[in-house]
């Protein structure tokens, strides 16, 4: 009889396909995870501190306590993601053993290896990785990432970097697909990515995996703008639980992500949400403290 094969590339990228059109929310407790689920999150990202707190408190940011991840997995029925440090393959092994549904190899945590990212192919659990441009996205996919999120600048509430990164990736894909076949060899060299993958993107006019946006989304209008710019879905980190009314804001961002082309709906859901997270302008963040520059 037919065999079951777990951890195939198709099953890994397939879960991300199921998340399309949805919002993935950062949570630091089981109670927050329940609030996110009740608000309509398609998945939650379990972590110890949201990026805004990592930014303000400083220090080395690492994988969460396994107890916390267990509690969050027990609290919700939607997929649970968790972050491992860039290159920290043992944190990833631990997260897989805990039964998380996706691992985010994330620049929000302190990198564990400034040369190599995790070799993601041997894992059964899928990985999502950040990217600021097409070449970076394709390098992560080459290493086995089954989902890409543009990085933005986490923990700021300033959407400008998220805008820049999704526009860059989309623009580079459009430029690539306008090239003739004989130009793709040099394009692969310039993108520092394998030729076969470059040719596939040029032909399909899209990445071979789902592309979400992250890093600075704080309002329903921010989320809808990312969707109009071509994102498949949205990560919201500090923007929800650092705001005045997390329940209402979470619901509003979910609705705006679905009805992203309808300004009347976005206006309606934006009413009476209380204070958005205070935020910090990316231009005020000194360059060494910009998280998007981690990873390569």
């Amino acid at each position, binding site marked *: *009889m*037919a*065999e*079951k*094969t*777990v*951890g*195939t590339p*198709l*099953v890994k990228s*397939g*879960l991300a*396909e*199921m*998340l*399309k*059109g*949805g919002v993935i929310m950062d949570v630091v407790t089981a109670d927050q995870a329940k609030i996110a*689920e*009740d608000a*309509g*999150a*398609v*998945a939650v990202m379990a972590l110890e501190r949201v990026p805004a707190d990592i930014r303000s408190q400083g220090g080395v940011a690492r994988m969460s306590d396994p107890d916390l991840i267990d509690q969050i*997995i027990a609290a*919700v*029925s*939607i*997929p*649970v993601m968790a972050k491992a440090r860039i290159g920290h393959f043992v944190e990833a092994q631990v997260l*897989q053993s805990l*039964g*998380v*549904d*996706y691992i985010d190899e994330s620049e929000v945590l302190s990198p564990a290896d400034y040369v190599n990212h995790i070799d993601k192919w041997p894992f*059964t*659990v*899928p990985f999502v990785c950040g990217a600021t441009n097409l070449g970076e996205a394709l390098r992560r996919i080459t290493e086995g990432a089954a989902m890409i999120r543009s990085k933005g600048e986490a923990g700021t509430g300033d959407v400008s970097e998220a805008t820049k990164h999704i526009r860059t990736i989309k623009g580079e894909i459009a430029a690539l697909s306008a090239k003739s076949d004989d130009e793709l060899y040099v394009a692969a060299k310039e993108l520092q990515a394998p030729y076969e993958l470059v040719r596939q993107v040029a032909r399909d006019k899209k990445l071979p995996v789902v592309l979400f946006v992250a890093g600075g989304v704080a309002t329903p209008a921010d989320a809808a703008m990312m969707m109009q710019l071509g994102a498949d879905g949205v990560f919201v980190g500090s923007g929800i639980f650092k705001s005045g009314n997390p329940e209402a804001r979470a619901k509003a961002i*979910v*609705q705006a992500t*679905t*009805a992203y082309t309808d300004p009347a709906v976005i206006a309606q859901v934006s009413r009476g949400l209380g204070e958005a997270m205070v935020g910090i302008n990316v231009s005020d963040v000194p360059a060494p403290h910009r998280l998007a520059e981690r990873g390569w």
Partner: protein
Amino acid sequence: MAGKPPVIGVLALQGDVREHEQVLDALDVAHRQVRLAGDLDGLDGLIIPGGESSVIDKLSRIFDSRDAVVSAIRGGMPVLGTCAGLILLADTLVGAIDGQQTFGGLPVTVERNAFGGQVESFETVIDMPTIGGEPVAAAFIRAPIIRDAGGADVLATLPNGDVVGVRFGNCVGISFHPEVIGETRVHRWWLDAVVTPAQR
């Protein structure tokens, strides 16, 4: 109306809408997205995609498409649900979140995430005698299982006997995703066996 090419709606609130559209494109079948109640007018069938069932349920109520979908199903519109779509067609759920509702239409009991988390997700091939031919390619992604098929016809079972596909009248629900694997025969069969007869 016999002979008129069908137009199929894909419920497009959240989930793998694009993959179902690609299968319909491959079969050269016209389709459009359904978000609001009025979007159902003039359709010959509806596909409820994979995604997060709790989210699709909520959004269908928020955007007022729920009542129209429920009455279309009760009125006999042919429906195909994959994974979350099967969950949304089940009359009874195991493992629902607080307040989660379904559209109903299949008199079956379905358990959400019945295989466990993502590390248990798998690819396989599965015999579907009703469709005939070679076993179909199937991706099970945090998939549900039909724990009690009730009076529905069983379309697919796993080797251990778990029921993963059923039909009851106009409603077809399967636990797995032929659409993410490029398998078109389940959709082809649904169009021929459920949608076309309903057009006459």
